[in-house]
């Protein structure tokens, strides 16, 4: 009986074995240059959440004010009480506890954290989501690729990249997507568009080129395409099972997080979901308790859900606000603005979970002269944080994770060249270099 593989051919196959090391090399290389994340979800904690009552508890400190810490799924890492569900997901989460910014005002701080630059009168920097949409391909998405759900006063904007990169604003996903439904029967609606051609034709006469240059009609067509797109259903969380909706929590923010997951599935690049109410100058502890009860199920469910759908590797989730709050408690039982040592949580998208970067000094006081020196970049950081991570470094990390060249030089409309980020990615946060 002839063997299935002759000796000769076996030799031949053996000859091909020289390929094996290459194959493994390729596989390893593929692993090393793992695909960057495709989407970013920003859980925006408007008002500046207290790090002490969320991601950076110091129960032993005299400034704790009774806040306790709970153990998490990762040994040695604790969260503040009130985040038990998130604690279970700790293996996927990296905490940065040593964030510093130089802006202690809500509006200026928001701009700083959302763009990675302090407000600059000479150039309006784009938000990170806008940069991502600008740099990454559109990939067949009919709906806006940059979405802001429950947007606050200062939603993410396109800055010098242009307002076509502004986030699309959306309220509680329990309601409809604004302005995407014609208020007319189809027939009348379609006839109106035909009528529009007549008016457009008259206007274009003698100014065809400049009229085309306005892209008005193209934009109308794009808007119509969006109105009829199946992808719009991604906003509709009522299509999810009751169990899933319950997991995220029956709150606008919970629905926002669920919509964010659905949007990412259809190719949206960046979703910002806002949870306002963190500006706790008064009764900090009781307000934080209420806020945590909203944040905890939503954030934890988002991580779990993305993981189960094998989307977590491709989706970076980041949670934080414009600054943190003072370690000391003021006479009204509140904590005030504190940009020198606050926390951010990151999960998925190639970020190495189950770790903590940096630590804060829970006894730092607000009227310390050192704060001013530090804000002015004159050193003294160690009084507040260890292993400082600046806003610039955070923005570089986010962009890098999404595969965007964070230090790419970009021409602004006035001809000035600026980088997308002035920071460096935090290596320790990344799975691969």
């Amino acid at each position, binding site marked *: 009986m002839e063997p299935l593989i002759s000796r000769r051919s076996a030799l031949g196959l053996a000859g091909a074995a020289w390929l094996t090391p290459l194959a493994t090399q390729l596989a390893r290389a593929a692993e090393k240059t793992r695909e960057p994340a495709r989407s970013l979800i920003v859980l925006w904690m408007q008002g500046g959440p207290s790090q002490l009552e969320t991601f950076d508890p110091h129960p032993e400190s005299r400034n704790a004010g009774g806040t306790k810490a709970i153990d998490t799924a990762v040994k040695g890492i604790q969260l503040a009480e009130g985040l038990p569900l998130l604690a279970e997901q700790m293996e996927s989460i990296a905490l940065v506890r040593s964030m510093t910014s130089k802006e202690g005002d809500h509006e200026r701080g928001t701009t700083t954290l959302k763009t990675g630059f302090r*407000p600059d009168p*000479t150039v309006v920097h784009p938000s990170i989501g806008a940069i991502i949409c600008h740099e990454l391909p559109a990939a067949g998405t009919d709906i806006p690729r940059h979405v802001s759900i429950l947007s606050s006063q200062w939603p993410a904007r396109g800055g010098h990249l242009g307002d*076509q990169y502004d986030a699309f604003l959306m309220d509680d996903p329990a309601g409809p997507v604004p*302005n995407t439904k014609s208020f007319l029967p189809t027939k009348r609606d379609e006839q109106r568009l035909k009528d529009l051609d007549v008016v457009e034709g008259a206007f274009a006469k003698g100014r065809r080129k400049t009229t085309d240059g306005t892209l008005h009609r193209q*934009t109308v067509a794009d808007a119509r395409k969006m109105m009829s797109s199946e992808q719009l259903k991604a906003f509709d969380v009522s299509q999810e099972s009751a169990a899933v909706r319950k997991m995220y929590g029956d709150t606008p923010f919970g629905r926002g997080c669920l919509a964010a997951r659905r949007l990412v599935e259809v190719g949206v690049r960046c979703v910002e979901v806002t949870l306002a109410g963190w500006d706790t100058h008064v009764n900090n502890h009781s307000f934080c308790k209420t806020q945590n009860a909203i944040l905890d199920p939503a954030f934890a469910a988002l991580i779990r859900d993305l993981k189960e759908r094998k989307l977590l590797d491709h989706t970076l989730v980041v949670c934080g606000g414009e600054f943190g709050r003072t370690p000391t408690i003021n006479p009204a039982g509140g904590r005030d603005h504190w940009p020198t040592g606050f926390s951010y949580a990151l999960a998925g998208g190639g970020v190495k979970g189950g770790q903590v970067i940096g630590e804060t000094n829970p006894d730092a006081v607000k009227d310390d002269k050192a704060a*001013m020196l530090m804000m002015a970049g004159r050193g003294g950081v160690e009084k507040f944080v260890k292993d400082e991570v600046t806003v610039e470094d955070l923005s570089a990390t986010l962009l890098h994770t999404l595969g965007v060249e964070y230090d790419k030089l970009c021409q602004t409309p006035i001809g000035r060249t600026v980088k997308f980020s002035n920071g460096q990615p935090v290596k320790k946060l990344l799975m691969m270099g």
Partner: protein
Amino acid sequence: MGVRDWFFSCLVVGGVLTLGVNLMPPARTKPLDVAAVPVPDAELKATVEAINIHMRAAWAKESLTSAPPAGDLLVARRLSLALMGTVPSLEEIRQFESLPETERLDWWLEHILRDRRSADFLAERVARAVVGTEDGPFLLYRRRRFVTWLGDELAKNTPYDHLVREMIAGNGLWTDHPSTNFITVTSRSEEGNQPDPIRLAGRVTRAFLGLRLDCAQCHDHPFASWTQDHFEGFAAYFGQARLGFKGIQDGDGQFEVEDRKTKEKRVVEPGVPFGRELLPKDGSRRDQLAVWVTHPKNPYFARATANRAWAILFGRPLIAPVDNLEPQGVSPDKEKTLADQLLDILADDFRRHGHDLRRLFRVIAATEAFRRDSAADFDITDAHERAWAVFPLSRLRPEQVVGAMLQSASIATIDAESHIVTRLMRYGQTNDFIKAYGDTGDDEFDERGGTIPQRLVLMNGELVRERTKDGILNASSRIASIAPTDAKAVELAYLCVLGRRPTSNEMEHFTARLNDTERTRGQRLEDLYWTLLNSTEFSWNH
């Protein structure tokens, strides 16, 4: 009948009349204040002619044909949008057309310049340049107070240099002396709420001088001859401004900056980058700076203002960006561009006539370039656009879009004298609309295309639906009932929304559409309104 009875009956009759007038005001017919049109002085004419000559020379040099003159109604729309943020009402168009052709546009411009709507709208546009759109520090900054103050001053036609001096050097509380909000918007909580000299210096140079000196904040200017020392010296003029119980005052002390390299503090004395001889000897530092900035011999102040006024009327500045007159730096021997020549002429006239903003608008509006059509029977090239041989297309600002929409939905003029409820409604609707449409921010002359959310708002938005639907308050239904023929109805709708009459082709199409019996007459007019509101023509200045 005694005198007392007689008095009593007078009182009763008077009371009834007053009540009646208040409940049912007589139809407001505005008198045509043609007499108020100032006779254009010879000097104004000469300035306009000088501009026209330079323009024509530039066109001839490049062998460009200019577009034909635009129709009067189109020019009226441009003026109305630029200076009041809305379109002419049907009522106003009627008055306009009742005047002899040679007087119409002059009358219209004066009518606008005297209208409170214009002062308020321009105040907002100036405010964007000088304090931006930010909400600013809580309690210490009242943007609305500042804009109202600007509006009041513009309504009085206060000379522009006075306004600017008041902003730079004003003292007092930001609530009492609203001009000081110019200073308090830069208050920094981390510095005990003290104003920020660096930001103020940046604002002053950009908004009032058209120089981006603040690029020299971190490094010497890449192109121009400004250095970091110049910028720091300029900032030092705000180094003694203090915020205290009495609001903004000048104190004493030194302005210190930190060296970027050595990280050491050093004292910086105030100094200006050019024209030192224009500085007065006395007054606080801010007083001195205010005089220097607005000095008739400071070459930049009048030029920067002229460039901005041009941008307000044309939708784009002579030199872009509007706050950067010298991106390439000063070189005395370089050949002057057309824009430079025009700015020189405009600035000279502005300076010699007491920094009168209204006069500046009159001059620009009277130029041939402003009266050109945006369409032509030849191919419009970039060269035509650069040389202003055709009127440029520019996207309307959100306030202009909503202003035009609300006005076009009403036959009567919605103005500052309208009923308070009308105005309050307009205020609320305007804010909601602008939020959905997307504000343009500080950089209002940035050339940008439209966005998808803007189209969605105009196609499907609540306000559009409310204002076009068949209802007694809306122009569409009023037209449906008052127009004797379909042709007349089409014409009225075009006049209300686009400020022009339909072409024969459009007339034919829409009269046929108005004949359709599947929809009510109200619905047919509503559809026509929707169509016109969603056209390129409606959303762009042209």
